[in-house]
């Protein structure tokens, strides 16, 4: 079955002036040959609900005379990795996780998210900005790398504002995908519904009509956007055939090593199948259970185990599929949790946060930057030396710095979407391996 090819699509876009008027990623896509995508694969992992860095990557021990900040530190101490600035709390599966991955991670602590609202915190963490309308990093990366791709941005929930840069897709069930990839095939056998030559004629007329619809000068912006999306989707859906190679009959059993149902496993598997098929640039994974207003330690332990087990599976499978060297991962959450336990043995919302960037074979990994004090208050750092700096030159680390670093690592900095959605944050040399 043939669909509109890229040359036709470029012509179509030119006819209606879309190359000049829409923010959609149509300009670059058709000036280049689109082969299966082989660039960086971005995966974000959202620990939704607001995690507690003090039991994870920004460990805090109780201070005599102060209210208890962590229960694990009643009988245990912070773990430090030799030769690395990374420390972790002896809690959940942290030891297994940090000891294995510390060489591939940059821990950023003391991030001031400036909010304790879930919606705002989520937006701030994953877009780098508090005001609405900024795209998630995944949307930005999809726009930069995903021109002409059918599924450049996969999401499993969480913050997925695209700001018109790309469309996202949810792909969670493989059983019926085959039937959608070849829409003219009768399910379960090789019969066709229509002769192929007639299908080609129908599709040519469909696309001619779509061209004419887009060429109208009086379209409302929403019409123009929807028509562009339809044209874009049609132009690129033949590439879905690549998925037929990688799709298993069924996805991995979602029970993780601790015996818990863990949706991250299937999410990660689909992300890598689609990326490995050359169809996907960025995927947002999401796992919940972190909003532990009561029974904090027990509930947080389970949630953290799911999180680290899921990330471990992601890297294991990426290794197995030969994709690990292309993988760039950002792990984060809405915000942190209060440095004190409430009456229900829980912890409430707290703006100070952490994040973890992961990539193999990089000089900037195996480090921890940013800082918070013993009460988990953010400390300003010197933008050049990254040392704690309470003076006038000190800067507070904010989500925008994390997002800027990710844009830099991912090769997105300097692109048009990067320029269109600039992040307002003074420079901090987070990625400099020599400091």
């Amino acid at each position: 079955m043939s669909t509109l090819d890229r040359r036709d699509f470029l012509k179509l876009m030119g006819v209606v002036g879309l190359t000049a008027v829409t923010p959609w990623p149509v300009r670059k896509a058709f000036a280049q040959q689109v082969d299966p995508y082989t660039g960086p694969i971005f995966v974000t992992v959202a620990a939704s609900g607001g995690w507690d860095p003090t039991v994870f990557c920004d460990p805090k021990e109780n201070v005599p005379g102060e209210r208890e900040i962590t229960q694990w530190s009643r009988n245990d101490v912070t773990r430090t990795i030799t030769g690395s600035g990374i420390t972790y709390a002896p809690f959940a599966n942290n030891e297994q996780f940090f000891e294995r991955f510390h060489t591939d991670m940059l821990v950023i602590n003391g991030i001031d998210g400036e909010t304790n609202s879930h919606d705002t915190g989520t937006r701030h963490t994953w877009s780098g900005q508090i005001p609405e309308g900024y795209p998630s990093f995944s949307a930005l990366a999809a726009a930069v790398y995903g021109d002409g791709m059918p599924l450049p941005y996969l999401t499993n929930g969480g913050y997925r504002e695209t700001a018109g840069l790309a469309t996202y897709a949810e792909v969670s069930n493989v059983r019926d995908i085959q039937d959608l990839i070849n829409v003219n095939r009768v399910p379960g056998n090789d019969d066709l519904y229509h002769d192929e030559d007639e299908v080609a004629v129908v599709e040519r007329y469909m696309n001619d009509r779509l061209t004419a619809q887009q060429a109208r000068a009086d379209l409302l912006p929403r019409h123009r956007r929807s028509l562009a999306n339809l044209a874009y989707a049609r132009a690129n859906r033949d590439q879905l055939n690549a998925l037929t190679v990688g799709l298993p009959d069924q996805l991995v059993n979602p029970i993780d090593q601790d015996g818990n149902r863990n949706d991250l496993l299937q999410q990660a598997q689909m992300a890598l199948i689609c990326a490995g098929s050359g169809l996907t640039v960025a995927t947002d994974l999401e796992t919940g259970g972190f909003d532990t207003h009561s029974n904090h330690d027990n509930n947080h332990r389970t949630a953290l185990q799911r999180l680290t087990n899921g990330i471990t599976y992601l890297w294991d499978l990426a290794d197995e599929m030969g994709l690990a060297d292309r993988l760039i991962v950002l792990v984060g959450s809405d915000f942190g949790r209060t440095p004190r336990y409430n009456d229900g043995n829980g912890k409430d919302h707290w703006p100070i946060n952490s994040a973890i960037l992961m990539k193999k074979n990089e000089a900037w990994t195996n480090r921890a930057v940013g800082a918070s004090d013993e009460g988990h208050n953010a400390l300003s750092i010197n933008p050049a030396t990254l040392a704690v700096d309470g003076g006038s030159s000190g800067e507070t680390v904010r989500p925008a710095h994390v997002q800027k670093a990710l844009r830099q690592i991912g090769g997105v900095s300097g692109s048009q979407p990067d320029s269109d959605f600039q992040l307002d944050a003074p420079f901090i040399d987070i990625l400099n391996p020599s400091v």
Partner: protein
Amino acid sequence: MAVATPASAQVCGDWNDDGNVTAQDALGVLQVAIGIASCGLATCDIDGSGSVTSTDALKTLGLAIGQDIEGDCTPDTDICLTDMEFFFEKIWTPIQTDCVVCHNPTGIAAQTDHVLIDDAQMGYLEYNFNAWRDYASITDGKIGAELLLSKPQGLAHGGGQRLGITTGSAHHANMIELLDRFENPVSECGEQAEFWSGVTFLTNNQVLDKAAIVFAGRRPTVAEQNRVADGDVEDLKTTIRDLMTGNAFSDFLMESANDHFLTDKFLIRQSNAFGVLKGVYQYPDLYRRIDLVEAIYGDEMGSDAWTMTNRALAREPLELISYIARFDRPYTEIVTANYMVVNPWSAPVYKTKADIQSDWSEENWHAGQNEGYRLNGYPHAGVLTSPMFLNRFPSTATNRNRARARWVYKFFLGIDVEALSPRLVDPTELEDADNPTMNNANCTVCHSVIDPVAATFQNFGDDGLYLEHDEDSLPSSYKRTDLYDHGDRWYSDMRVPGFGGVTMPEAETDASLSWLGQTIAQDPRFARGAVEFWYEALFGRAPAGRPSDPARADYRGRLAGWVAQDAQFTEIADKFRDGTAGTGRRGVYNLKDLLVELVISPLFTAKGTLVSGTQRNAELANMGFVKLLTPEQLNRKFEGIAGRPWARRWSLDEPDLLGRYRLFYGGIDSSGIIERADELNALMSTVPQRMAFEMACPLAVVDFSETANNRNLFPAVEPTDTPDTAAGEQAIRENVVWLHYWFLGEYLATDDPEVDRAYALFTEVWTMRVAGDKHTNLRWGGGRCELDFNEGDYIEVDENHTIRSWIAVLAYMITDYRFIYE
């Protein structure tokens, strides 16, 4: 309708300012470019280069002849603003919306001289403008104007510094300008362009077409079309309202409500409604009818009884809304109804006295009281006391119903409480151990609003059980503390039940949610909240939010669009409240009439624009009913138009769009996937294509097997009509015109270019088939036909190759933009 913003006043390229861009304007811009005429950059710098050149003249000419060129005229920063416009754009939106969080009649700054009202109140702009003018005029004992400038800098201000305001900031400068305007008012800026100027609108019949698809899942009847074509707007309103009956309308209502309430989660066996009701200890007759059915009719029927009972229990809050609409009861009953709705399967569980327990119909819904719970006196307050609603939004010992309160504000008053304070002033204040939600200003910003409402849920436990511990629903962890006194219903270290600064009377303790429902139903924001709730239901997207970042290039355009939307919402809410909405004959707060108002509003009927450009595009970004149909809506539309569902032929009651492809096509499962996709991606785009390829053949064969006057799809043509005769071509063209209307809602003439295109498609396929001497057997020749030919007396041979050619045309129609979008 004029709106309070000048943002749309200047049209990029409109050199002579006559409201249109013509060749005369292009000549004028050229004269400006060579220096013999003058024009501001906001009008004549089409490419936004900072100067007017011959390139701008060429682009103006392009605009004049209809080319799709973007006008990027440099915004005119010196544009005239009246005092109210200036106040709205420079003071209220960026500054006072922050102040009003505390400085309102029920806020923590209510006792100061500086009290504002929020934008849900009628006349809030004038009130707040006057409030600052009056405050600025104070000179006795304190200098009001100086305090207005110094407080937000954090000088002697309980709220600290706000919005980063300093003496050098833009906000500060704007406040100084406002003070100057109090002395030197600017009330006129000349003639303003109307926001909707240059926008084209659907005809009444086109509005009816869309409304019929959305509310009834079908095209209008001839009688409905004629009534609208021959009538006025009142006829249109009446006809639209009359569409709001039957299962399609109920489905629309319940799907829309479920997109917010998500209670369909309990339809899933793994998270079923029986679990919500917590077994026979809480509801002794929970399984009584199921057991009876099973004993008499066996396991299979027992299983069916379980499914129907579960559906009845799970759907109860959604069916309540449907019930209110169908019987034209006031929409306020969504939070005030002193009843729940039951059908023959749920009535025995709740032991209502509704006389339907001998019936079997799932569609037979009645009002009743919950007398099936183990305690007497279950209070009713519409959705608020629904066990399903309460369990879908559970609480915890520390959340203390605050999440439930948040959703009350969101669903019923249109207020996002979390947005009251998106950014903290001082994060370390959260470490405050002195009951910060009561005492710390950083926390009370939200908690003074949320907590009294949270307290009205006092009688319901974390999972939604009424008086879970017989006398209260307080957690045992709290009851072990010194804070608890025997007999307490609520936490003594939290705010008492109330709403909007009013404390709930003690006598209402047993029915505190009923009190809350009655109170919020009387709140002026209730009507506005309903408008926003049902706007999102109808349009499939949230209302445009007020832009919050003046630094963004599209700020003014988005602001103008928001103001226009706001004006529509306010007007509709007023009519909804006073009973003049829609046909105005069914009393106050009538949901059907609210929906009628939304449909006839320009938000829905806007069809196109004669003026484009960056600014105008931002203004119109959210206008017009441009909606990707949900899987459920597309399923109804397909069945309503095609006459049969897209389903496996052995399970016609399980349409593919509601089953195997629902989530692929952007649907939700109300559990893990709770947000609908509102735009297509590549994978989604394959779903309607598969639908078209599978269904085009059976549709054509079944329809052509009928006599012409009984056909839905091919009333104007016979299989013997071929393109090689003039009469054949005429018949084919006439049927193409019909299909363009029937499938796509287009009104075309037989010589329209789009009719030419579809006719050409027909002819090309027909020619290929004839020339190739292709098989004429419709069961398998030229592809599998997804039809059981043994189930009816169907045509099996396509002697003239016309039916297969029409099948190609049907596939073309079903995949079209206008079929999958409305």
